[in-house]
Protein backbone atom coordinates (compact mmCIF):
# COMPACT_ATOMS: atom_id res chain seq x y z
CA UNK A 1 0.00 0.00 0.00
CA UNK A 2 2.85 2.33 0.79
CA UNK A 3 4.17 1.63 -2.66
CA UNK A 4 0.87 2.45 -4.21
CA UNK A 5 1.10 5.83 -2.49
CA UNK A 6 4.55 6.41 -3.89
CA UNK A 7 3.25 5.75 -7.34
CA UNK A 8 0.23 8.03 -7.04
CA UNK A 9 2.38 10.79 -5.65
CA UNK A 10 4.76 10.64 -8.51
CA UNK A 11 2.15 10.24 -11.21
CA UNK A 12 -0.12 13.06 -10.08
CA UNK A 13 2.61 15.08 -8.44
CA UNK A 14 3.42 18.47 -9.78
CA UNK A 15 5.37 19.10 -12.89
CA UNK A 16 6.72 16.63 -15.39
CA UNK A 17 10.49 16.70 -15.50
CA UNK A 18 12.06 18.42 -18.45
CA UNK A 19 13.58 16.06 -20.98
CA UNK A 20 17.08 17.31 -20.16
CA UNK A 21 16.84 16.63 -16.45
CA UNK A 22 17.26 12.87 -16.79
CA UNK A 23 20.66 11.68 -15.63
CA UNK A 24 22.79 9.45 -17.79
CA UNK A 25 25.20 7.33 -15.78
CA UNK A 26 28.65 6.56 -17.20
CA UNK A 27 30.94 4.13 -15.45
CA UNK A 28 34.43 5.58 -15.28
CA UNK A 29 36.23 2.91 -13.24
CA UNK A 30 35.17 -0.55 -12.12
CA UNK A 31 36.79 -3.09 -9.87
CA UNK A 32 39.35 -5.68 -10.99
CA UNK A 33 37.96 -9.08 -10.23
CA UNK A 34 34.31 -8.07 -9.99
CA UNK A 35 32.07 -11.09 -9.32
CA UNK A 36 30.86 -12.80 -12.51
CA UNK A 37 27.09 -13.27 -12.41
CA UNK A 38 24.40 -14.02 -14.99
CA UNK A 39 20.89 -12.62 -14.70
CA UNK A 40 18.92 -14.63 -17.26
CA UNK A 41 16.00 -12.86 -18.99
CA UNK A 42 12.90 -13.26 -16.82
CA UNK A 43 9.89 -15.05 -18.26
CA UNK A 44 6.96 -12.73 -18.95
CA UNK A 45 3.80 -14.47 -17.76
CA UNK A 46 1.76 -11.35 -17.12
CA UNK A 47 -1.30 -10.11 -19.02
CA UNK A 48 0.25 -6.62 -19.04
CA UNK A 49 2.29 -5.61 -22.11
CA UNK A 50 5.95 -6.47 -21.68
CA UNK A 51 8.13 -3.37 -21.13
CA UNK A 52 11.00 -2.64 -23.52
CA UNK A 53 13.56 -2.92 -20.73
CA UNK A 54 13.21 -6.22 -18.94
CA UNK A 55 13.58 -6.86 -15.23
CA UNK A 56 16.79 -8.87 -15.75
CA UNK A 57 18.33 -6.04 -17.75
CA UNK A 58 17.61 -3.56 -14.95
CA UNK A 59 19.10 -5.90 -12.34
CA UNK A 60 22.22 -6.47 -14.45
CA UNK A 61 22.70 -2.71 -14.95
CA UNK A 62 22.35 -2.11 -11.20
CA UNK A 63 24.85 -4.80 -10.27
CA UNK A 64 27.33 -3.52 -12.87
CA UNK A 65 26.96 0.04 -11.61
CA UNK A 66 27.94 -1.06 -8.10
CA UNK A 67 31.35 -1.98 -9.50
CA UNK A 68 31.34 -5.20 -7.50
CA UNK A 69 29.74 -7.41 -10.16
CA UNK A 70 30.49 -8.28 -13.77
CA UNK A 71 27.10 -9.37 -15.15
CA UNK A 72 27.13 -11.43 -18.33
CA UNK A 73 25.63 -9.81 -21.43
CA UNK A 74 22.39 -11.47 -22.51
CA UNK A 75 23.74 -12.25 -25.99
CA UNK A 76 26.56 -14.32 -24.45
CA UNK A 77 24.15 -16.62 -22.65
CA UNK A 78 23.77 -20.12 -24.05
CA UNK A 79 20.80 -20.98 -21.84
CA UNK A 80 17.80 -18.87 -20.86
CA UNK A 81 16.53 -20.66 -17.77
CA UNK A 82 13.61 -19.08 -15.91
CA UNK A 83 13.20 -21.65 -13.10
CA UNK A 84 15.81 -23.34 -10.87
CA UNK A 85 15.33 -26.85 -12.37
CA UNK A 86 16.25 -25.44 -15.79
CA UNK A 87 19.66 -24.21 -14.62
CA UNK A 88 22.41 -26.46 -16.01
CA UNK A 89 25.24 -25.70 -13.63
CA UNK A 90 27.95 -27.30 -15.78
CA UNK A 91 27.22 -24.90 -18.65
CA UNK A 92 27.44 -21.85 -16.39
CA UNK A 93 30.64 -23.16 -14.81
CA UNK A 94 32.17 -23.40 -18.29
CA UNK A 95 31.14 -19.78 -18.86
CA UNK A 96 32.99 -18.91 -15.63
CA UNK A 97 29.94 -17.55 -13.90
CA UNK A 98 29.71 -17.87 -10.11
CA UNK A 99 26.01 -17.11 -9.66
CA UNK A 100 22.86 -17.19 -11.74
CA UNK A 101 19.61 -15.31 -11.18
CA UNK A 102 16.44 -16.66 -12.81
CA UNK A 103 12.85 -15.53 -12.49
CA UNK A 104 9.54 -14.59 -14.01
CA UNK A 105 6.94 -11.87 -13.87
CA UNK A 106 3.30 -12.83 -13.32
CA UNK A 107 0.08 -10.99 -12.62
CA UNK A 108 -0.33 -10.12 -8.97
CA UNK A 109 -2.65 -11.95 -6.67
CA UNK A 110 -6.26 -10.71 -6.90
CA UNK A 111 -5.27 -9.15 -10.24
CA UNK A 112 -3.59 -6.16 -8.56
CA UNK A 113 -0.17 -5.24 -9.90
CA UNK A 114 2.39 -7.89 -10.63
CA UNK A 115 4.67 -10.32 -8.90
CA UNK A 116 8.37 -10.91 -9.50
CA UNK A 117 9.41 -14.44 -8.59
CA UNK A 118 13.17 -14.90 -8.57
CA UNK A 119 15.91 -17.27 -7.41
CA UNK A 120 19.62 -16.77 -6.83
CA UNK A 121 21.72 -19.89 -7.40
CA UNK A 122 25.32 -20.75 -6.60
CA UNK A 123 26.77 -22.38 -9.73
CA UNK A 124 29.53 -24.19 -7.87
CA UNK A 125 27.47 -25.80 -5.10
CA UNK A 126 24.20 -26.00 -7.03
CA UNK A 127 22.43 -24.49 -4.03
CA UNK A 128 19.62 -21.97 -4.11
CA UNK A 129 20.79 -19.01 -2.01
CA UNK A 130 17.63 -16.94 -2.24
CA UNK A 131 14.05 -17.42 -3.44
CA UNK A 132 11.36 -14.81 -3.23
CA UNK A 133 8.04 -13.75 -4.71
CA UNK A 134 7.89 -9.96 -4.60
CA UNK A 135 4.57 -8.16 -5.16
CA UNK A 136 4.85 -4.88 -7.06
CA UNK A 137 2.27 -2.12 -7.45
CA UNK A 138 0.86 -1.36 -10.92
CA UNK A 139 3.45 0.48 -13.00
CA UNK A 140 6.11 -0.09 -10.35
CA UNK A 141 8.03 -2.88 -12.06
CA UNK A 142 11.28 -0.92 -12.30
CA UNK A 143 11.29 -0.30 -8.58
CA UNK A 144 10.54 -4.00 -8.07
CA UNK A 145 13.65 -4.82 -10.12
CA UNK A 146 15.63 -2.49 -7.85
CA UNK A 147 14.38 -4.41 -4.79
CA UNK A 148 15.47 -7.70 -6.36
CA UNK A 149 18.88 -6.10 -7.01
CA UNK A 150 19.08 -5.08 -3.35
CA UNK A 151 18.32 -8.63 -2.19
CA UNK A 152 20.87 -10.21 -4.56
CA UNK A 153 23.49 -7.64 -3.53
CA UNK A 154 22.89 -8.29 0.16
CA UNK A 155 22.99 -12.07 -0.27
CA UNK A 156 26.38 -11.92 -1.99
CA UNK A 157 28.08 -8.84 -0.49
CA UNK A 158 26.74 -9.00 3.05
CA UNK A 159 25.37 -5.46 3.34
CA UNK A 160 22.01 -4.17 2.08
CA UNK A 161 21.95 -2.79 -1.44
CA UNK A 162 20.99 0.82 -2.15
CA UNK A 163 19.27 0.38 -5.52
CA UNK A 164 15.68 0.83 -4.30
CA UNK A 165 16.44 4.42 -3.39
CA UNK A 166 16.02 7.81 -4.96
CA UNK A 167 18.27 10.76 -5.46
CA UNK A 168 17.36 14.42 -5.37
CA UNK A 169 19.38 17.00 -7.31
CA UNK A 170 19.14 20.51 -8.70
CA UNK A 171 19.28 21.15 -12.45
CA UNK A 172 20.01 24.70 -13.62
CA UNK A 173 19.37 25.74 -17.20
CA UNK A 174 19.66 29.10 -18.96
CA UNK A 175 22.94 29.82 -17.17
CA UNK A 176 24.42 33.17 -18.03
CA UNK A 177 21.31 34.33 -19.90
CA UNK A 178 19.96 36.16 -16.87
CA UNK A 179 16.97 33.81 -17.07
CA UNK A 180 18.21 30.84 -15.12
CA UNK A 181 15.72 28.14 -14.23
CA UNK A 182 16.35 26.07 -11.12
CA UNK A 183 14.62 22.69 -10.87
CA UNK A 184 14.62 20.37 -7.91
CA UNK A 185 14.40 16.87 -9.37
CA UNK A 186 13.82 13.49 -7.74
CA UNK A 187 14.77 10.34 -9.70
CA UNK A 188 15.40 6.67 -9.05
CA UNK A 189 18.99 5.96 -8.02
CA UNK A 190 19.70 4.73 -11.56
CA UNK A 191 18.61 8.10 -12.98
CA UNK A 192 15.25 6.90 -14.33
CA UNK A 193 11.82 8.44 -13.67
CA UNK A 194 12.97 12.01 -13.05
CA UNK A 195 10.22 14.18 -11.57
CA UNK A 196 10.54 17.92 -11.09
CA UNK A 197 9.43 18.71 -7.56
CA UNK A 198 9.69 22.47 -7.85
CA UNK A 199 10.79 24.89 -10.56
CA UNK A 200 11.91 28.43 -9.95
CA UNK A 201 13.81 31.39 -11.39
CA UNK A 202 15.61 31.85 -8.06
CA UNK A 203 18.23 29.54 -6.56
CA UNK A 204 17.36 26.23 -4.89
CA UNK A 205 19.91 24.32 -2.85
CA UNK A 206 20.57 21.81 -0.06
CA UNK A 207 17.82 19.21 -0.55
CA UNK A 208 17.58 16.83 2.43
CA UNK A 209 15.48 13.66 2.63
CA UNK A 210 13.26 12.94 5.61
CA UNK A 211 14.17 9.61 7.22
CA UNK A 212 11.02 7.97 5.78
CA UNK A 213 11.76 9.23 2.26
CA UNK A 214 8.37 10.97 2.09
CA UNK A 215 9.49 14.59 2.30
CA UNK A 216 12.27 16.86 1.16
CA UNK A 217 13.55 19.91 3.01
CA UNK A 218 15.46 22.43 0.90
CA UNK A 219 16.50 26.05 0.66
CA UNK A 220 14.62 28.26 -1.79
CA UNK A 221 15.22 31.89 -2.74
CA UNK A 222 11.76 32.14 -4.35
CA UNK A 223 10.86 35.17 -2.23
CA UNK A 224 14.21 36.85 -2.95
CA UNK A 225 15.49 35.70 0.44
CA UNK A 226 16.54 32.28 1.65
CA UNK A 227 13.79 30.18 3.23
CA UNK A 228 13.69 26.56 4.35
CA UNK A 229 10.83 24.69 2.69
CA UNK A 230 9.49 21.22 3.50
CA UNK A 231 7.69 19.55 0.63
CA UNK A 232 5.65 16.37 0.73
CA UNK A 233 6.52 14.20 -2.26
CA UNK A 234 3.14 12.42 -2.28
CA UNK A 235 0.85 15.43 -2.13
CA UNK A 236 3.20 18.11 -3.45
CA UNK A 237 2.25 20.26 -0.45
CA UNK A 238 4.91 22.88 0.34
CA UNK A 239 5.41 24.54 3.69
CA UNK A 240 7.86 27.27 4.68
CA UNK A 241 9.32 26.09 7.97
CA UNK A 242 11.90 28.83 8.46
CA UNK A 243 11.84 32.41 7.13
CA UNK A 244 13.81 34.36 9.69
CA UNK A 245 15.65 37.56 8.85
CA UNK A 246 19.02 36.65 7.30
CA UNK A 247 20.13 33.20 6.23
CA UNK A 248 17.77 30.23 6.51
CA UNK A 249 19.88 27.34 5.31
CA UNK A 250 21.34 23.84 5.53
CA UNK A 251 18.32 21.78 6.71
CA UNK A 252 19.06 18.35 8.22
CA UNK A 253 16.40 15.95 9.54
CA UNK A 254 16.71 14.37 12.94
CA UNK A 255 16.61 10.54 12.73
CA UNK A 256 13.05 10.50 14.13
CA UNK A 257 11.91 12.93 11.42
CA UNK A 258 10.40 15.37 13.91
CA UNK A 259 13.06 18.05 13.99
CA UNK A 260 15.20 19.94 11.50
CA UNK A 261 18.60 21.36 12.29
CA UNK A 262 19.02 24.56 10.27
CA UNK A 263 21.50 27.39 10.04
CA UNK A 264 20.03 30.81 10.88
CA UNK A 265 21.81 34.17 10.95
CA UNK A 266 19.08 36.09 12.78
CA UNK A 267 21.64 36.70 15.55
CA UNK A 268 24.07 38.35 13.12
CA UNK A 269 26.07 35.30 12.03
CA UNK A 270 24.98 31.78 11.08
CA UNK A 271 24.30 29.51 14.05
CA UNK A 272 22.82 26.02 14.26
CA UNK A 273 19.22 25.94 15.46
CA UNK A 274 16.80 23.06 15.85
CA UNK A 275 13.21 23.64 14.78
CA UNK A 276 10.14 21.46 15.16
CA UNK A 277 9.02 20.34 11.69
CA UNK A 278 5.36 20.75 12.66
CA UNK A 279 6.06 24.10 14.27
CA UNK A 280 4.84 23.11 17.70
CA UNK A 281 7.92 23.32 19.93
CA UNK A 282 9.89 26.57 20.02
CA UNK A 283 13.18 26.77 18.08
CA UNK A 284 16.30 25.97 20.10
CA UNK A 285 19.62 27.68 19.44
CA UNK A 286 22.52 25.21 19.72
CA UNK A 287 25.61 27.26 18.80
CA UNK A 288 26.32 30.77 20.07
CA UNK A 289 29.39 31.92 18.22
CA UNK A 290 30.36 34.88 16.03
CA UNK A 291 31.76 32.50 13.39
CA UNK A 292 29.91 30.68 10.59
CA UNK A 293 28.17 27.57 11.94
CA UNK A 294 26.29 25.58 9.32
CA UNK A 295 25.81 22.26 7.48
CA UNK A 296 24.49 20.23 10.40
CA UNK A 297 24.35 16.42 10.14
CA UNK A 298 22.76 14.28 12.86
CA UNK A 299 24.42 11.19 14.25
CA UNK A 300 22.49 7.99 13.50
CA UNK A 301 21.20 7.82 17.09
CA UNK A 302 20.17 11.48 17.12
CA UNK A 303 22.33 12.25 20.15
CA UNK A 304 24.96 14.35 18.37
CA UNK A 305 25.15 16.91 15.61
CA UNK A 306 28.16 17.33 13.33
CA UNK A 307 28.60 20.72 11.66
CA UNK A 308 30.95 23.07 9.81
CA UNK A 309 32.42 26.02 11.68
CA UNK A 310 35.23 28.47 10.98
CA UNK A 311 35.59 29.40 14.66
CA UNK A 312 39.29 28.49 14.43
CA UNK A 313 39.81 30.66 11.34
CA UNK A 314 39.09 28.14 8.57
CA UNK A 315 36.13 25.81 8.18
CA UNK A 316 36.49 22.48 10.00
CA UNK A 317 34.05 19.81 11.21
CA UNK A 318 32.90 19.89 14.82
CA UNK A 319 30.55 17.73 16.83
CA UNK A 320 28.27 18.68 19.70
CA UNK A 321 25.60 17.07 21.83
CA UNK A 322 22.05 17.59 20.62
CA UNK A 323 21.75 20.09 23.47
CA UNK A 324 24.57 22.16 21.96
CA UNK A 325 27.00 21.22 24.76
CA UNK A 326 30.42 19.58 24.51
CA UNK A 327 31.61 21.01 21.19
CA UNK A 328 34.59 18.96 19.96
CA UNK A 329 36.68 19.49 16.84
CA UNK A 330 36.63 16.40 14.61
CA UNK A 331 38.84 17.19 11.58
CA UNK A 332 42.41 18.42 11.87
CA UNK A 333 43.96 17.38 8.59
CA UNK A 334 43.83 19.99 5.80
CA UNK A 335 42.96 23.68 5.70
CA UNK A 336 39.32 23.23 4.74
CA UNK A 337 36.81 20.57 5.76
CA UNK A 338 33.10 21.23 5.31
CA UNK A 339 29.64 19.78 4.64
CA UNK A 340 29.80 16.44 6.49
CA UNK A 341 27.74 13.43 5.37
CA UNK A 342 27.74 10.41 7.71
CA UNK A 343 27.70 6.66 7.16
CA UNK A 344 28.23 3.36 8.95
CA UNK A 345 27.00 4.47 12.37
CA UNK A 346 28.96 7.73 12.06
CA UNK A 347 32.32 6.03 11.63
CA UNK A 348 32.83 7.70 8.24
CA UNK A 349 32.36 11.37 7.40
CA UNK A 350 32.44 12.40 3.74
CA UNK A 351 33.54 16.04 3.55
CA UNK A 352 34.57 18.78 1.12
CA UNK A 353 38.32 18.93 1.68
CA UNK A 354 41.10 21.26 0.61
CA UNK A 355 44.69 21.67 1.69
CA UNK A 356 45.05 24.92 -0.22
CA UNK A 357 42.67 27.42 -1.75
CA UNK A 358 42.24 26.04 -5.23
CA UNK A 359 41.47 22.33 -5.19
CA UNK A 360 38.36 21.19 -3.38
CA UNK A 361 37.89 17.44 -3.22
CA UNK A 362 35.75 14.85 -1.53
CA UNK A 363 37.48 13.04 1.30
CA UNK A 364 36.40 10.49 3.86
CA UNK A 365 37.42 11.01 7.45
CA UNK A 366 37.52 7.73 9.38
CA UNK A 367 36.70 8.44 13.01
CA UNK A 368 38.19 5.13 14.15
CA UNK A 369 41.62 5.62 12.63
CA UNK A 370 41.43 9.45 12.61
CA UNK A 371 42.72 9.28 9.01
CA UNK A 372 41.51 11.29 6.07
CA UNK A 373 41.43 9.75 2.61
CA UNK A 374 40.91 11.86 -0.51
CA UNK A 375 38.50 10.12 -2.89
CA UNK A 376 37.93 12.50 -5.79
CA UNK A 377 40.27 14.19 -8.22
CA UNK A 378 38.37 17.29 -9.34
CA UNK A 379 39.14 20.91 -8.57
CA UNK A 380 35.69 22.05 -7.46
CA UNK A 381 34.09 18.96 -5.96
CA UNK A 382 31.38 19.57 -3.36
CA UNK A 383 28.16 18.43 -1.68
CA UNK A 384 29.03 14.80 -0.73
CA UNK A 385 26.09 12.52 0.05
CA UNK A 386 26.55 8.94 1.23
CA UNK A 387 24.41 6.12 -0.12
CA UNK A 388 22.30 4.80 2.76
CA UNK A 389 24.40 1.61 2.87
CA UNK A 390 27.66 3.56 2.98
CA UNK A 391 28.94 1.93 -0.23
CA UNK A 392 29.16 5.02 -2.45
CA UNK A 393 29.44 8.78 -2.13
CA UNK A 394 27.52 10.93 -4.57
CA UNK A 395 28.89 14.45 -5.09
CA UNK A 396 28.88 17.45 -7.42
CA UNK A 397 31.81 18.24 -9.67
CA UNK A 398 32.66 20.45 -12.63
CA UNK A 399 33.67 19.05 -15.97
CA UNK A 400 34.57 21.31 -18.90
CA UNK A 401 32.79 24.18 -17.23
CA UNK A 402 29.61 22.22 -16.56
CA UNK A 403 28.15 20.95 -13.35
CA UNK A 404 27.95 17.15 -13.26
CA UNK A 405 27.36 14.60 -10.55
CA UNK A 406 29.86 11.90 -9.78
CA UNK A 407 29.81 8.86 -7.56
CA UNK A 408 32.76 7.09 -6.03
CA UNK A 409 32.82 3.94 -3.91
CA UNK A 410 33.88 4.40 -0.32
CA UNK A 411 37.13 2.58 -1.11
CA UNK A 412 37.77 4.85 -4.12
CA UNK A 413 37.90 2.00 -6.65
CA UNK A 414 34.59 2.49 -8.47
CA UNK A 415 33.81 5.75 -10.23
CA UNK A 416 30.78 6.97 -12.14
CA UNK A 417 29.72 10.17 -13.77
CA UNK A 418 26.07 11.28 -13.91
CA UNK A 419 25.32 13.92 -16.51
CA UNK A 420 22.23 15.71 -17.78
CA UNK A 421 21.86 16.62 -21.44
CA UNK A 422 21.56 20.36 -20.86
CA UNK A 423 22.56 22.70 -18.06
CA UNK A 424 24.26 22.13 -14.74
CA UNK A 425 23.39 19.43 -12.25
CA UNK A 426 24.39 19.88 -8.63
CA UNK A 427 23.40 19.45 -4.98
CA UNK A 428 22.80 15.67 -4.95
CA UNK A 429 21.14 14.01 -1.98
CA UNK A 430 20.79 10.25 -1.72
CA UNK A 431 17.55 9.09 -0.10
CA UNK A 432 17.30 6.62 2.75
CA UNK A 433 16.34 3.06 1.79
CA UNK A 434 12.67 3.23 0.77
CA UNK A 435 10.70 0.42 2.38
Amino acid at each position, binding site marked *: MVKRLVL*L*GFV*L*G*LLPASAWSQLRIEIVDGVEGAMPIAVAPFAWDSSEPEPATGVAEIISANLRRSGLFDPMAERDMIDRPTRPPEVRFGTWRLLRVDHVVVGRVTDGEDGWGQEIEYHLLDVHTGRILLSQALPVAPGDLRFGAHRVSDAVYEALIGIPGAFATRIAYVVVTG*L*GTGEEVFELVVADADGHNPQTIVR*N*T*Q*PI*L*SPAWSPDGRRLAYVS*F*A*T*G*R*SNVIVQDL*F*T*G*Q*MRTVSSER*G*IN*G*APAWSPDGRELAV*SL*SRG*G*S*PDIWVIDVDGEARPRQLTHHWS*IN*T*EAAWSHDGRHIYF*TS*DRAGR*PQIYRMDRSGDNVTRITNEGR*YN*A*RPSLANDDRFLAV*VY*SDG*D*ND*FRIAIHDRETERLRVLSDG*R*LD*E*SPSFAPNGSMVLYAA*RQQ*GRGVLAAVSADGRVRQRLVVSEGDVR*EPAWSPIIR
Partner: protein
Amino acid sequence: MNTVMRFAALVMMAALVAACAREVTPEPAPPEPTPPPAPERPVETDRLDPRDFTDARNLDNPDSLLSQRVIYFEFDRSNVRAQFRPIVDAHAAYLRGNPSARVILEGHTDERGSREYNLGLGERRGNSVYEILRASNVPSRQIEVVSYGEERPVCRESNEDCWQRNRRTEIVYTAR
Protein backbone atom coordinates in the same frame (compact mmCIF):
# COMPACT_ATOMS: atom_id res chain seq x y z
CA MET B 1 -3.77 15.14 -4.15
CA ASN B 2 -6.36 17.32 -5.74
CA THR B 3 -6.27 19.61 -8.70
CA VAL B 4 -7.49 22.62 -6.74
CA MET B 5 -4.53 22.39 -4.40
CA ARG B 6 -2.10 22.08 -7.24
CA PHE B 7 -3.68 25.02 -8.99
CA ALA B 8 -3.45 27.04 -5.78
CA ALA B 9 0.22 26.11 -5.46
CA LEU B 10 0.85 27.26 -9.02
CA VAL B 11 -0.93 30.56 -8.43
CA MET B 12 1.10 31.07 -5.27
CA MET B 13 4.30 30.35 -7.10
CA ALA B 14 3.40 32.78 -9.86
CA ALA B 15 2.68 35.42 -7.22
CA LEU B 16 6.02 34.79 -5.56
CA VAL B 17 7.87 35.10 -8.84
CA ALA B 18 6.07 38.37 -9.54
CA ALA B 19 6.76 39.64 -6.05
CA CYS B 20 10.45 39.12 -6.38
CA ALA B 21 10.79 40.95 -9.67
CA ARG B 22 13.12 43.75 -8.85
CA GLU B 23 15.31 46.40 -10.32
CA VAL B 24 17.72 44.84 -12.76
CA THR B 25 21.27 45.02 -11.52
CA PRO B 26 23.44 46.87 -14.00
CA GLU B 27 26.32 45.04 -15.65
CA PRO B 28 29.06 44.87 -13.04
CA ALA B 29 31.87 47.35 -13.45
CA PRO B 30 35.42 46.00 -13.56
CA PRO B 31 36.80 45.59 -10.04
CA GLU B 32 38.58 48.96 -9.96
CA PRO B 33 36.40 51.99 -9.26
CA THR B 34 36.82 55.04 -11.47
CA PRO B 35 38.52 57.91 -9.65
CA PRO B 36 36.23 60.47 -8.05
CA PRO B 37 35.31 63.31 -10.42
CA ALA B 38 37.70 66.27 -10.53
CA PRO B 39 36.85 68.81 -7.83
CA GLU B 40 35.86 72.44 -8.32
CA ARG B 41 33.84 72.09 -11.48
CA PRO B 42 31.58 75.14 -11.68
CA VAL B 43 28.05 74.09 -10.87
CA GLU B 44 25.19 75.53 -12.80
CA THR B 45 21.78 75.48 -11.25
CA ASP B 46 20.16 73.47 -14.03
CA ARG B 47 23.07 71.07 -14.44
CA LEU B 48 23.46 67.84 -12.57
CA ASP B 49 26.31 67.87 -10.03
CA PRO B 50 27.72 64.32 -9.95
CA ARG B 51 28.89 64.93 -6.40
CA ASP B 52 25.42 65.67 -5.19
CA PHE B 53 24.88 62.27 -3.61
CA THR B 54 21.34 63.09 -2.59
CA ASP B 55 20.12 63.54 -6.16
CA ALA B 56 18.40 60.39 -7.46
CA ARG B 57 19.39 61.26 -11.05
CA ASN B 58 23.00 60.50 -10.10
CA LEU B 59 22.09 56.87 -9.56
CA ASP B 60 21.99 56.63 -13.36
CA ASN B 61 24.73 59.16 -14.06
CA PRO B 62 27.92 57.36 -15.14
CA ASP B 63 29.94 60.39 -13.96
CA SER B 64 28.69 59.96 -10.41
CA LEU B 65 29.97 57.52 -7.82
CA LEU B 66 26.32 56.75 -7.08
CA SER B 67 26.10 54.86 -10.37
CA GLN B 68 28.65 52.40 -8.99
CA ARG B 69 26.97 49.83 -6.83
CA VAL B 70 29.33 46.86 -6.60
CA ILE B 71 32.00 46.40 -3.92
CA TYR B 72 34.62 43.69 -4.62
CA PHE B 73 36.44 41.57 -2.06
CA GLU B 74 39.63 39.56 -1.75
CA PHE B 75 39.53 35.78 -1.47
CA ASP B 76 38.10 34.58 1.84
CA ARG B 77 37.97 38.19 3.10
CA SER B 78 35.02 40.39 3.89
CA ASN B 79 36.60 43.75 4.73
CA VAL B 80 35.77 46.69 2.45
CA ARG B 81 39.03 47.83 0.87
CA ALA B 82 39.94 51.52 0.95
CA GLN B 83 39.40 52.07 -2.78
CA PHE B 84 35.74 51.06 -2.46
CA ARG B 85 35.04 53.19 0.57
CA PRO B 86 34.05 56.33 -1.46
CA ILE B 87 31.33 54.30 -3.21
CA VAL B 88 29.84 53.14 0.07
CA ASP B 89 30.09 56.67 1.49
CA ALA B 90 28.24 58.09 -1.54
CA HIS B 91 25.37 55.66 -1.00
CA ALA B 92 25.35 56.45 2.70
CA ALA B 93 24.85 60.11 1.80
CA TYR B 94 22.06 59.22 -0.61
CA LEU B 95 20.23 57.05 1.89
CA ARG B 96 20.51 59.73 4.60
CA GLY B 97 19.21 62.35 2.20
CA ASN B 98 16.37 60.13 0.91
CA PRO B 99 14.68 58.50 3.90
CA SER B 100 12.20 56.62 1.70
CA ALA B 101 15.00 54.96 -0.28
CA ARG B 102 15.66 51.29 0.48
CA VAL B 103 18.57 49.05 -0.42
CA ILE B 104 19.31 45.36 -0.31
CA LEU B 105 22.97 44.52 0.15
CA GLU B 106 23.46 41.29 -1.79
CA GLY B 107 26.52 39.37 -0.62
CA HIS B 108 28.17 36.98 -3.09
CA THR B 109 31.16 34.61 -3.15
CA ASP B 110 33.10 32.76 -5.81
CA GLU B 111 32.33 29.12 -6.51
CA ARG B 112 35.07 27.53 -4.40
CA GLY B 113 34.14 25.53 -1.34
CA SER B 114 30.80 24.42 -0.03
CA ARG B 115 27.57 26.22 -0.90
CA GLU B 116 26.11 26.64 2.55
CA TYR B 117 29.41 27.82 4.01
CA ASN B 118 29.55 30.33 1.17
CA LEU B 119 26.10 31.62 2.16
CA GLY B 120 27.72 32.59 5.47
CA LEU B 121 30.70 34.16 3.71
CA GLY B 122 28.44 36.17 1.39
CA GLU B 123 26.51 37.45 4.36
CA ARG B 124 29.73 38.66 5.99
CA ARG B 125 30.44 40.73 2.86
CA GLY B 126 26.95 42.20 2.96
CA ASN B 127 27.35 42.90 6.67
CA SER B 128 30.65 44.76 6.12
CA VAL B 129 28.89 47.25 3.86
CA TYR B 130 25.92 47.34 6.27
CA GLU B 131 28.22 48.29 9.17
CA ILE B 132 29.73 51.19 7.21
CA LEU B 133 26.28 52.48 6.27
CA ARG B 134 25.13 52.21 9.89
CA ALA B 135 28.29 53.96 11.13
CA SER B 136 27.40 56.75 8.67
CA ASN B 137 24.03 57.12 10.42
CA VAL B 138 21.86 55.40 7.84
CA PRO B 139 18.81 54.03 9.71
CA SER B 140 18.71 50.22 9.76
CA ARG B 141 15.16 50.18 8.36
CA GLN B 142 16.56 51.40 5.02
CA ILE B 143 19.00 48.49 4.66
CA GLU B 144 18.68 44.75 4.38
CA VAL B 145 21.42 42.17 3.85
CA VAL B 146 20.68 39.11 1.69
CA SER B 147 23.38 36.55 1.00
CA TYR B 148 23.28 34.55 -2.22
CA GLY B 149 26.58 32.78 -1.53
CA GLU B 150 27.87 31.33 -4.81
CA GLU B 151 24.40 30.97 -6.35
CA ARG B 152 24.40 34.14 -8.48
CA PRO B 153 27.77 34.49 -10.21
CA VAL B 154 28.20 37.27 -12.79
CA CYS B 155 31.03 35.35 -14.42
CA ARG B 156 30.97 31.62 -15.02
CA GLU B 157 34.52 30.53 -15.70
CA SER B 158 36.69 28.77 -13.15
CA ASN B 159 39.64 31.17 -12.97
CA GLU B 160 40.80 34.01 -10.74
CA ASP B 161 39.66 36.74 -13.17
CA CYS B 162 36.14 35.46 -12.89
CA TRP B 163 36.30 34.65 -9.22
CA GLN B 164 37.30 38.20 -8.31
CA ARG B 165 34.30 39.60 -10.16
CA ASN B 166 32.04 37.21 -8.28
CA ARG B 167 33.32 38.07 -4.78
CA ARG B 168 31.15 41.11 -4.26
CA THR B 169 28.41 42.99 -2.49
CA GLU B 170 25.83 44.55 -4.77
CA ILE B 171 23.91 47.57 -3.54
CA VAL B 172 20.44 47.04 -5.00
CA TYR B 173 17.88 49.85 -4.69
CA THR B 174 14.37 48.50 -4.12
CA ALA B 175 13.07 52.06 -3.64
CA ARG B 176 14.78 55.28 -4.67
